[in-house]
């Protein structure tokens, strides 16, 4: 995507306006690209991101490449702050926990135990981060009158930026149902997603909702980012009972 948006984001005539920012100390590591922007540095940054992502996808990553990936993405997002959505902030957090994932096993069992512990902590951290995001979104909605009286989605669909001609014509009662469903979903997601009985229904609703956000409301990157997060709840979903069953089968 960065290659595609090169002219807008990185060229001499880029639409991004950068102001130097400094917080001092180690925190300035997040603003290196923003503070020292040049076209070669921009190109190096997004090429580096692409290379590190490919390394990760080929399962050749290690703690150092993962750390680099997180730092580069952090810099990219600090530079592109005026175009960010909540999905980009979430990506930063997921990449932070991604640092602790380890693919390769070591010959030293003590080191392996430590690696496994870090790996499990990172997986729990990512899942908790997604739950926290939903819970916070619901908490903010509790403070807003239009979400409480059910008019929020209708109001949002009247804004051309987040809507299209079909959404604008939706009757008020459907919008009210959507408002309360969204609100309820965000509120109960952190509690119910851990139970297999509710999981598929929750994720099906979430995927539908994020597909509407991506394709009907036009917030593509945000919608897709949130849907990608659901994979973690499906793929790494072994309960203790499942593991015991799997071990028994192997024996």
């Amino acid at each position, binding site marked *: 995507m960065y290659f595609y948006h090169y002219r807008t984001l990185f060229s001499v005539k880029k639409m991004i306006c950068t102001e130097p920012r400094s917080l001092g100390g180690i925190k300035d590591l997040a603003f290196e690209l923003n503070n020292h922007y040049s076209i070669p540095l921009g190109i190096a940054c997004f090429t580096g991101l692409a290379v590190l992502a490919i390394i990760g996808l080929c399962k050749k990553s290690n703690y150092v490449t993962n750390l680099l990936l997180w730092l580069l993405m952090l810099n990219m997002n600090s530079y592109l702050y005026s175009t960010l959505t909540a999905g980009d902030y979430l990506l930063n957090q997921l990449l932070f926990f991604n640092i602790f994932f380890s693919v390769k096993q070591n010959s030293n069992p003590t080191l392996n135990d430590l690696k496994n512990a870090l790996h499990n902590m990172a997986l729990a951290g990512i899942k908790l981060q997604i739950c926290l995001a939903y819970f916070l979104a619901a908490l903010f909605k509790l403070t807003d009158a239009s979400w409480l009286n059910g008019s929020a989605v209708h109001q949002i669909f009247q804004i051309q930026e987040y809507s299209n001609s079909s959404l604008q014509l939706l009757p008020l009662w459907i919008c009210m149902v959507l408002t309360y469903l969204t609100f309820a979903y965000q509120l109960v997601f952190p509690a119910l997603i851990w139970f297999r009985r509710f999981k598929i229904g929750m994720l099906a609703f979430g995927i539908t909702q994020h597909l509407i956000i991506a394709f009907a409301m*036009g917030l593509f990157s945000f919608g897709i980012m949130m849907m990608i997060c659901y994979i973690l709840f499906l793929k790494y979903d072994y309960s203790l009972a499942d593991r015991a069953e799997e071990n028994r089968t192997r024996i």
Partner: protein
Amino acid sequence: MPVTGKRIIAVALFLFLAGHFLLVFNYASPFKIGKPLSSASNRYCYPFFHQQWTVFVPTPTRQFDLYIRNGNGTSWQLWMNVTKTLIKKNRKSIIMGKETEVLLVTNAINYLVYDLGDTNHVYEQKPDLPSFKVLEHAARNYFRNYRCWKEGKQYEMAVVAKSPEKTTYYYFKNLSLK
């Protein structure tokens, strides 16, 4: 590794996660837990763990439009609605569309309107605001890139904030490509 060692590691990692999420929650939540913790949260979270989950709170009620026209100071071309053009282009191709440009321009307008307040105004000179600088820069380079505007060209910008109750106009004159 002995069981005790494993337990110590597990407890340490649990404490790290608990502390991390307590600070992140306090940083990003609408309800803060005490001043000392808020200060610690801010120090810990920004910029590495910065996040915002206000997602459509407050609910947007105003429609923003950015109009631009160019000319030579006496005769002017027709106004062009930049936001509408970008949104239309984004709708045509959602995946490889203009989402970035739409977000950039609408976010910049949002901040600018917040900074300028809720009254109609004609600006003979540029307002000295970072939000204006961001919007002007984006608009200027949009026209350089997509409309092939040349250096020295004069132009004017108008931002219209429209809600069911009220429409506010912000008119910026005497702008030029340098």
